[in-house]
Every structure is written in structure tokens, then in C-alpha cells.
């Protein structure tokens, strides 16, 4: 687990955080660039931070410099070179943090960000999504991708900011289930395209019939983290409402595991309410994923943060920014599940006056408050911020895309980890055309988005490995995924999915999450084993029947030869014996 960033007091380190908070990371980097003189001091922050050690690096780097021998620089000479780095600049150097590590992944991430946005927009507007996903190969390593939706469109003034400014979005400040979280993805993809091909991101959008369709070509000014509009015009567009994003980039198109093809297929499974037309390079060229249901997922409600999930730094910030004049009111108003009684209990435990001014809370008081929160019993957060796929929809998604003969799905009741509501769902497809001599095909999803990388680091994989699948009718070698004709679908829905890194590829293994995963997998496993047993029984019955048909005539032949029976006696014998065995057939288990 990464530790909180450097701007927080040391004491907060013992508390877990849900992944390196990018904002913090960047702020730290920016701050450092301001306080430190040289340009290369940004380098430590540029490392991929997986363990949270970054928080210690800044002070030590500073002290190293102070302790140096002969002065080569003066404060003034350094000041001449000190300037702000924008977050966009930061990311041009750290693109791997967002999933642009290599050309194959860059293509996938670009499409993924655009599709995430389209689906989120359609659902928020209550529109059944129709998506056009196109990959056009321009040269060996050069592609033009386009994602078009029938969503609500984007108002003209917002378009440049959404696509040309990092960390601009609607989802970061609300707590509810959504595919995107931070407002980085699509602008980062556009930036990647610009960086590798020099081409602008092209956006066409219309908000409704009778409204003009706006066509933009946007580049991101990485210095300022601000959009630069190259073209802004009204165009003829046949789409009634929706948005089309086009990005040209250097990438690699491959098929198979980790491919865009796989991503689109899995997206179709997890989003049976969406219709997707996928155009890709190669001879076949087009794949149509029809809609399997006309029911939109329930609309998730935004909730306020739950006290248990808040970190000390965030708590201090919330207290500073609250509109409430009294501490107890701030607690009540800005958090979910805090009643007056609970607020008073918290204040009492923190030895703070309920009517204290929250803006004047000092650090050690905030620490007391933080500890007090965790000592008071508070009701679990509301779960209407979640929008699970639902058992029926999982089944329809699987049935549509997987050729199997048995399907089962489980949606668990919502549960909570560190104040964040989450919900686990598992679907299973068995038999049919699926290969029986291979490891099960494990499909992982977070908020309906397929997770294709870092399988082994993910809580879902760990939970699957932690189950003895042999008791559910599958074979399994020690420490490996089970083997059998199975597609295993696992979905975690949460207002805040605890990813292990910003590229959102693996889910952190919180004990509460592991527990729910295990229970859901076991429940599905029980359904599976019932089917497998029943299926085996049916196969056995068939076999027994065929044994009788096959071998009894030979008993007739042998006895006729030995006893010189007439043909009629032989026939009688065979008929009688078949009848006797048929009657007792089902009572005898088949042995082989």
C-alpha cells in the first residue's frame, strides 16, 4: 500500500490509502520544483511510485543539498531557473503511469479512455449506448482511432477543457460509481497522440436535434496545462446527438490476449445494454456486438464521503473548506451517515467543542478528530452510489458472447471497505465450445471496465487462486488457476475502486474485498458443481444405455454358440436381459 504524500504529517502514514493519489503526487512534484532549485530534482518524483516511498525523498534531497561542500550555486542563481512545472509536463515524462508504457498498450488505453467516457456519458443521460469504435491503420505503427457515441453531447464551451486539459472532469469531486475517476484519461490520450504524431485531437459533438454540431481540433499546451484550439467550426453532422473523438497515434495493433479486440468483446459482455460496432485493421474488419438488454443500469447516486474512508490530509482540507461554522455541523453536513448524535460523540471523543470553528482546527486537533472518528461506531455508507450489473444482465452478457451450455451469476449485497461501499459480482460460463484442457478464462472488471493487465497482482486473481476448485468439479494444480471449459467473470463495483496503480489494472486486496470475492466465487462454484454433477449423471446414463445396447447381443451370440440355441431363443434371451438391466440401470453408479 502506498503511503500518503509528503504534505501530510508523519503520523498519518500508518493509515492505508487507496492507491497513490495522483493529485497529491503531482502537487508534490510541482511544489518541489518550486522550492528546490534544479530541474533534475523533479526526477525522483518521476519514478513510478508503487510503494509510497516518494514522501521521504523530498526532504532528504533538500538536506543533501544544504550539507554540500563548496558552493557552486547561489540562491539567486538557482532562483533564475526555478519555475512551475505543469501537470501536463509532468505526464509527458511519466506516461507509463497512465498506461502508455508501450505502443500496444497505448493503442488500447486510448480506445479504453474514449469508450469509458462515452459509456459514462450515455448512462448519466439515460441513453442506451450505441458506440462506434474504429481503428484505422495508416502505416505500420501509425493508427487513427475514432470513438463515436449517441450520448448527450458536450456543450461547446466545455469541449476544449475536457479534451485539452488534464485533471478536468466531473467525476473526481463526486463519490459515485463511474468508469472514469480523475479526468485524466482522454486528455492524456490526446496528449500522447500529439506527442507521437504531432496531430491534434479531433472532437465533434452535438447536444441535440436542431443544435449545431461543433467540430474542434485541440492541442494541449503542456506548459500551461491548457487547451489550444486549432480549429473551431460548425459542421454538418448526421448524428442527432453524441460525441466523436479522433486521435492519431503511434501504436501497435495485435490480436489475442491484451488486445483491443479482447477489450471490446469483454466490454460488450459487461455492458449488455450497449451496442458496439467495432472496426479494426485486417481482412475481417468489422465486428458487431448487438445489445442484449434494453434495461439501463440503475443510476448511481453521488454520496458524501464516509468518515471511515477519509484520510487525515483530506480531513484537514475538508475542515478548512467547509461552509459550516461549527465543527459538529461540518461533520454532519459534509459526511454521510453522521447524525447529530454521532457528531457529538466524535467531538467528545476528540475532546473538541462541537461548536468550535472548523476553519481554525490545528493539526494536532485534526489528528485527535481523525482518531476519534475511527473510535466511534458509524453506520455503513449508503449503497445507492453503486450500480451493479445484476445477475440477469451478467447472464445475458455472457450468453451473448460465450458459447457455453451452462451459465450462472451472483451479485453479492453491497459491503464496505474503509468507508467505501463496494459490490462483488461473479458470473460463470461452462461447457459448450469452451476448451476443456486449458486454464479457465478469467475476465476481471472494475466498474464494468475490463482489466487486462497485471492479472497476478489483482485481488480478483488472488481470490480465485485461494479457492479449491476441485471441490467444484474442476481440476486445479497447486497455485494455478483451475482448468476446465470455463469463462469466469468477476466484477467489482465501487464508488472508489482501490486500484494498485493509476493505470487502473489491478485491484488492491483489502480483506473485506477478498472476503466478498471468496463468498461470491464459492456461491457460483456451488452452482457450477451441481450442474457438472447433473451433466455427468446424464452422460453416464447415456453410456450405460449404450453398454446395454452394445454388449447384450454378444451374450446372446455366445450362449447360442455354446448351447446351440435357436434364433428365437436367442432373441428372447436378448430382449429379456435388456429389460432386466434397463430396470436396474439407474440404481447403479457407473464405474470405469
Amino acid at each position, binding site marked *: 500500500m502506498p503511503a500518503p504524500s509528503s504534505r501530510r504529517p508523519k503520523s498519518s502514514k500508518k493509515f492505508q490509502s487507496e492507491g497513490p493519489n495522483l493529485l497529491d503526487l503531482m502537487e508534490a512534484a510541482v511544489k518541489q520544483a518550486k522550492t528546490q532549485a534544479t530541474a533534475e530534482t523533479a526526477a525522483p518524483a518521476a519514478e513510478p511510485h508503487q510503494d509510497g516511498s516518494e514522501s521521504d525523498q523530498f526532504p532528504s534531497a533538500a538536506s543533501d543539498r544544504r550539507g554540500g561542500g563548496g558552493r557552486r550555486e547561489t540562491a539567486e542563481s538557482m532562483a533564475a531557473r526555478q519555475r512551475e512545472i505543469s501537470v501536463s509536463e509532468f505526464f509527458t515524462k511519466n506516461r507509463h503511469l497512465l498506461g502508455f508504457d508501450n505502443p500496444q498498450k497505448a493503442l488500447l488505453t486510448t480506445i479504453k479512455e474514449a469508450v469509458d467516457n462515452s459509456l459514462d456519458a450515455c448512462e448519466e443521460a439515460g441513453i442506451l449506448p450505441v458506440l462506434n469504435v474504429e481503428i484505422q491503420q495508416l502505416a505500420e505503427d501509425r493508427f487513427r482511432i475514432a470513438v463515436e457515441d449517441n450520448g448527450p453531447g458536450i456543450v461547446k464551451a466545455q469541449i476544449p477543457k475536457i479534451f485539452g486539459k488534464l485533471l478536468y472532469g466531473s467525476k473526481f469531486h463526486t463519490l459515485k460509481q463511474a468508469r472514469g475517476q480523475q479526468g485524466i484519461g482522454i486528455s492524456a490520450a490526446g496528449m500522447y497522440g500529439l506527442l507521437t504524431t504531432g496531430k491534434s485531437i479531433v472532437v465533434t459533438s452535438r447536444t441535440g436535434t436542431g443544435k449545431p454540431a461543433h467540430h474542434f481540433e485541440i492541442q494541449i499546451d503542456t506548459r500551461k496545462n491548457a487547451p489550444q484550439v486549432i480549429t473551431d467550426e460548425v459542421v454538418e453532422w448526421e448524428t442527432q446527438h453524441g460525441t466523436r473523438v479522433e486521435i492519431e497515434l503511434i501504436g501497435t495493433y495485435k490480436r489475442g490476449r491484451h488486445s483491443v479486440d479482447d477489450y471490446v468483446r469483454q466490454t460488450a459482455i459487461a455492458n449488455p445494454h450497449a451496442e458496439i460496432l467495432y472496426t479494426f485493421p485486417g481482412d475481417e474488419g468489422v465486428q458487431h456486438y448487438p445489445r442484449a438488454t434494453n434495461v439501463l443500469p440503475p443510476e448511481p447516486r453521488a454520496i458524501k464521503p464516509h468518515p471511515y474512508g477519509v484520510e487525515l490530509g483530506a480531513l484537514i482540507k475538508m475542515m478548512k473548506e467547509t461552509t459550516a461554522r461549527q465543527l459538529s455541523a461540518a461533520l454532519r453536513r459534509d459526511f454521510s451517515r453522521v447524525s447529530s448524535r454521532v457528531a457529538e460523540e466524535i467531538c467528545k471523543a476528540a475532546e473538541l467543542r462541537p461548536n468550535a470553528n472548523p476553519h481554525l482546527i490545528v493539526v494536532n486537533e485534526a489528528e485527535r478528530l481523525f482518531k476519534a472518528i475511527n473510535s466511534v461506531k458509524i453506520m455503513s455508507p449508503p449503497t445507492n452510489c453503486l450500480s451493479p450489473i445484476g445477475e440477469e444482465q451478467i447472464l445475458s452478457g455472457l450468453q451473448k458472447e460465450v458459447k457455453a451450455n451452462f451459465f450462472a451469476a451472483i451479485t453479492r449485497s453491497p459491503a464496505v471497505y474503509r468507508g467505501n461501499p463496494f459490490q462483488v459480482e461473479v458470473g460463470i460460463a461452462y461447457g459448450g465450445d469452451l476448451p476443456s484442457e486449458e486454464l479457465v478464462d478469467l475476465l476481471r472488471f472494475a466498474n464494468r471496465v475490463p482489466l487486462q493487465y497485471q492479472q497476478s497482482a489483482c485481488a480478483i486473481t488472488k481470490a480465485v487462486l485461494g479457492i479449491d476448485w476441485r471441490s467444484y468439479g474442476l481440476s486445479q494444480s497447486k497455485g494455478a488457476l483451475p482448468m476446465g471449459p470455463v469463462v469466469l467473470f468477476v466484477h467489482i463495483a465501487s464508488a472508489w475502486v482501490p486500484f494498485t496503480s493509476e493505470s487502473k489494472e489491478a485491484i488492491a486486496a483489502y480483506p473485506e474485498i477478498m472476503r466478498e470475492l471468496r463468498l461470491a466465487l464459492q456461491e457460483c462454484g456451488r452452482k457450477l458443481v451441481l450442474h457438472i454433477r447433473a451433466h455427468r449423471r446424464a452422460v453416464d446414463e447415456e453410456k450405460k444405455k449404450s*453398454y*446395454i445396447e452394445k454388449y*447384450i447381443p454378444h*451374450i446372446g451370440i*455366445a450362449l447360442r*454358440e455354446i448351447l446351440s440355441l435357436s434364433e428365437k431363443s436367442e432373441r428372447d434371451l436378448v430382449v*429379456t436381459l435388456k429389460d*432386466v438391466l434397463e430396470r436396474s440401470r439407474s440404481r447403479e453408479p457407473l464405474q470405469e
Partner: protein
Amino acid sequence: MAKKKASAAKLSEAASKAMLSAIHSSAEEIHRKIMARKKPTMKFPVRSLTNVRYHPQRGFFEIAGQKKERTLTVNTVKTFAQTLRMIALSKELIENDDIATKREAYYVSKNWEDARFSEQPESDTVMDDVEAFFEVNREQLGFIPEEKGGDIAGRLIVIDHDRDTGKVLRIDCTKFGSGAYSIPISVERIEFDTNASFILVIETAGMFQRLVKHNYWKKANCILVSMGGVPTRACRRFIRRLADFKKIPVYVFVDGDPYGITNIYRTLKVGSGNAAHLNEFFCVPQASFLGITPQDIVDYKLPTHPLKDVDIKRARDAIKNDPFIRHYQAWISAIEHLLKMGVRAEQQALAKHGLNYVIDTYLPEKLKHPERFLP
């Protein structure tokens, strides 16, 4: 002479008739049960070491009487059908005075469509079942083994008959030069003439060749028999009849390892667990163990190989489960000695002291004290 042949034919005709009627009545019983809407059953003696007893007075593994019952059910219908068809084949062979090897019987089954055997071991097992079911020798059912019976050289005249003329043939086993007489598949009608003082039964063809080449039989006035591994039924029967006929002792010379002791020697002497109903005829109770004993390995400072895992398992199994080994403390001690040393020695290991050390020193020394041979 003609009279003798006629009586032999008559004898076999009577045996055939008895066999045919046994087949007929068991088939009739099955037929009757089926028509009474009952599931027919066949009873077989359990064919394993757990179902044999050893009495030194009687001298062979006796079947202990455990039987397994095979009732015709969905699960057994295939084997049941195959067993009956095998019995029908046997009936046909006996009626036509014909024979079939195990391999031929397997090929005959290829005509049986769904009931055919896919591999010969399957048909061999069913044949063994049929043999045990009627508690007869498979030759009586018209089935003959393919395996070689064993080789003979030395002071023995085998008295056989010409198949066509019935004329007596006297086969002198001293006159095969560097070759040998082959034990036929059926030895019941063979007679003997010999004044040898013992029979030396040898495990390996290599050792047999050495003793033949140097006319060891002349020097020791004996009959040499090569078993070539675990002795076949014909080989055991041949040695038994020969030893009974002239009341001459049988000394066994095999490798000093668990296989030589518990498989080759034990099977020769008391028979096998697999065909226990036949052991009475296919055993040589008067046999004793000349070598190579575990003590020989020490006394003669023989070069050795370490015991393999299978050797160790075989030795432990024998001490634990083999009724013959368990009957003799001498054998238990010898095998434990072998296990403790953890080594085995082959017959040919004697060549360490010179190629003919076995002829000039080892065998003469051992034969001075037959009373010291292991039981």
C-alpha cells in the same frame, strides 16, 4: 505302441468331453437365470497372493478359497459378454480338436465388433478368468501359451513320439553340442531316461551357455535347465515330472536379488498367486536354492549394484505378504540381510574371479554342502 497311442487319444477325448459338458452346464445355468429374469453370476477364485496358503508338506501354494462374484450388471456387461464369447471360442476349439495361442485368441476377438478387445492384455485377463472359472489348465480349453518353455542340456534322454507315426523318439540331450533341447508346450506325455545326480536350474541364458560350452554336465553328472527369467508353466511341469520320475534333487541358481528369489525361485518351487488353482501341477517342491545367496555376496566378495526402489519394495512385500517366504525364517533373514546390505549381485558377477571360476570353484564348493542350500 499303437495301443498306447489309442489310449492316450481316448484319455484326451474323455477329458475333452468332460470339459465340454462343464462349459455346457455353466452356460445353461446362465441362460436359465436370465430367462427367470434374474441376473446371472459367475464365481472366480481370487487370483492373488492374498488368496493362497502354503503347507510345506504339500509343497505348493494352495488356493485359499476366496471367490469373487461377477454379477451381470450395466458395469460388468462388457466383460461378461467377452468372457462368454471366450468360452464359446474354447468350446469351438475343443470340438474341432484345434488350438489357439493367446495372441490368436486376441485376433479372433476382432470379429466380435463392439465386444472385441483393443489390446492383448485385456484378452489375456479374460482368458485367465475363464481358466480360473473352470479351475482347469488353459491347455484343456484349447488355449496355448506362446512363451518359450526353457532349454535342456546334459545327462538326459527325453522319450517322445513322432506326431505322424507314433514311433518312439529318444532324444539325447548330451548330443546338442553347443545348442540345447527345447521344452515343448505340453509335457504330459513325455517320459525320461537318466542317471544324472541332480538338476541344475539356471536363471540366465548367458550362464547356461557358459556351462554348456564347457560341458559342465559331464563333470558334474547333471542336467542343465535354462529358465530365461520366471519359469513358464511348461518348464515347471517338465522339471517337476523329471524330478519326480527319478527322485533327483533340483538345485536353483539365480541372480542374488529380490526378483531372483521371490519371483523366479519362489514361482518355480511353489507356483504363482495368479493361477493358484493349477499350482499343484506346476511347481517343484523339491527345489532348493543354491545361489546366489546374500551370504555368497559376502563370502565371494562379489561386485554388486545398489538395490533399486522396486527391488526394495519387492523384498519388503515378500517379507510382509508372501506366505512361502514368511514360512521360512531362513528366507526372512536372508532377504533382510540383502536389504541391510542394500545391494544385489548377478550370477555373472562371479566372472570377477575369472570366467570359469563358476565352474572350477563356485559350483563345486557349493555342491559339497547341499544341506546348506536355502529352502
